């Protein structure tokens, strides 16, 4: 990934790369829930926020360094994920969507109103960048490689999950929960593992986000963010290994490219979602697979 060498001097492009990277990890999180379990979540901003605020709080308020803080933050988000996984076993489809919406909003509202801890709308500012010993990741350039490492870790974990028996269990649950359970898959455990991992990834992304951008406030963690992540997951191709990278990068670039359209961009965005659902519900990766299998035959 030598891309950044070309853009090293441009803050603008480095920003796009780094934010894309962070969102890629967040998309891997939703990719897990939607792709492997078939559940829609529009509350992912909640996990993201937990990761961001816990990391920021720990690096600012305690003597803890970035990496241990990130670990704790990710664990917190993973726990939140597991918590969300419980209703998932009993409630399906559109009811579950509502629960995820409620979750995301509850997190945002608590952050907004718990001023003593989170400073409300003023947010947390001057979050220190990550450091490893004496090496500080202060430049956008170095941050890129940090994010890249975590993307690779996320990909590896996703891949190994896919190959493991848990991955197969999840996919079987997606196809038919009844049949899978009869075959011995434990829906509760499988779902909890999935949600826990998803929470972990999202929390990871959140911590990286907080330390990169330096200041966070509750407005960023809204339903709109959750929806954006959902769209990135779908456009790339839900449940695939490369989908999140493709979908996220495509949408981030598109957003910048069409920035001149301002509010009309969002109108196109909404129309685009409908378009994708009608014509390519399996995303770009789905399209690629279809085309390649047609070419083979």
């Amino acid at each position: 990934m030598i891309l950044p060498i070309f853009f090293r001097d441009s803050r603008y492009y480095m920003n796009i790369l780094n934010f894309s990277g962070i969102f890629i990890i967040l998309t891997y999180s939703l990719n897990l829930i939607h792709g492997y379990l078939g559940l829609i979540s529009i509350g992912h901003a909640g996990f993201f926020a937990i990761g961001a605020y816990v990391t920021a709080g720990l690096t600012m308020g305690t003597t803890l360094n970035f990496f241990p803080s990130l670990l704790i933050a990710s664990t917190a988000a993973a726990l939140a994920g597991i918590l969300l996984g419980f209703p998932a076993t009993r409630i399906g489809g559109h009811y579950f969507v509502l629960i995820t919406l409620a979750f995301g909003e509850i997190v945002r509202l608590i952050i907004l109103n718990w001023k003593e801890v989170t400073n409300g709308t003023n947010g947390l500012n001057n979050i220190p960048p990550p450091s490893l010993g004496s090496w500080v990741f202060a430049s956008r350039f170095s941050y890129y490689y940090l994010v890249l490492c975590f993307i690779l870790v996320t990909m590896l974990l996703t891949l190994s999950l896919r190959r493991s028996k848990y991955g197969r269990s999840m996919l079987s649950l997606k196809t038919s929960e009844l049949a899978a359970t009869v075959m011995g898959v434990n829906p509760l455990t499988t779902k909890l593992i999935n949600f826990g991992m998803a929470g972990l990834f999202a929390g990871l992304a959140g911590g990286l986000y907080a330390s990169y951008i330096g200041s966070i406030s509750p407005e960023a963690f809204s339903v709109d963010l959750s929806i954006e992540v959902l769209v990135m997951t779908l456009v790339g191709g839900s449940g695939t290994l490369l989908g999140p990278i493709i979908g996220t990068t495509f949408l981030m670039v598109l957003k910048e490219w069409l920035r001149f359209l301002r509010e009309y961009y969002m109108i196109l965005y909404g129309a685009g979602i409908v378009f994708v659902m009608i014509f390519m519900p399996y995303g770009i990766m789905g399209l690629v697979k279809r085309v390649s299998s047609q070419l083979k035959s």
Partner: protein
Amino acid sequence: MIQEIVAGFSMGCIYALVGFGFVLVYNAVGAVNFAHGELVMFGGYFGYTFSTHLGMPLWLALAASLLAMAILGILFNQVAYLPIRNRPVSTVIIASIGMSILLRNSALAIWGPDPLKLNSFLGDGVINIGGIVILRHQLLIFAVTAFVFTGQSLFFSRTAIGRKLQATAQDQEAAKLMGIKVTRMINLTFILAALLAAIAGFLVAPLWFLDPEVGLAIIVKAFIAIVIGGFGSVPGLVVGGIFLGLTEVLVASHLTSEYKDVISFFILITVLMAMPQGFFGEKIAEKV
């Protein structure tokens, strides 16, 4: 105290009215329409444009808005539902999310981000009954809610077209076999939902004012009302709406007004976990 009950009651009626259009579509085609709140909002926005920009008297603005909304309902159906009606449920849900974004930002582009005011039919006045101050608009809300909900019960059970709609909702295949033109019924359902949204919009706008985010805010509340009452049940919807409205007001004034929405969400989650069918609705939790 009574003051608060009146306020909560009227908000609850609005939630029920907003939810009704949504439930109509859901019952008929099983589709969750996330953009319904935006439809309500558009009803109000159309009313604003017709009455304030074009200077129409309010009742004419309502008629024009109903017409515009009916067209919007048809368009919505054609573009966002019919092409994907045979796909899995999640596809339809996500498409409706897309429509929600599209409509919300169209409103932003057309009317701008600042809140706009739509006047109430009965004006801004208040009346005083034994020390309790009631907005005239709130009386209008009660009246319309009562009218709509008793009307719909008669409509669906006594009229031929109402029964056809019911048949389509219960079993599309069987309805087709009985000679009912299902696609036309679905179109009609979307139109009805849009009309109801317009009416709800005219009732909400004077209270909450009109801005592009209103749609999302109100549909979320309507969802909670629907879940409390039971997905798919109309009497449940009214009960759920009023329950939510009252709870909100009482929580805000006696417990905490900042966390009021958090509590509403917690109610949603609790009901879904403990009593997923709500008070009146269908069973949805599956124990495998």
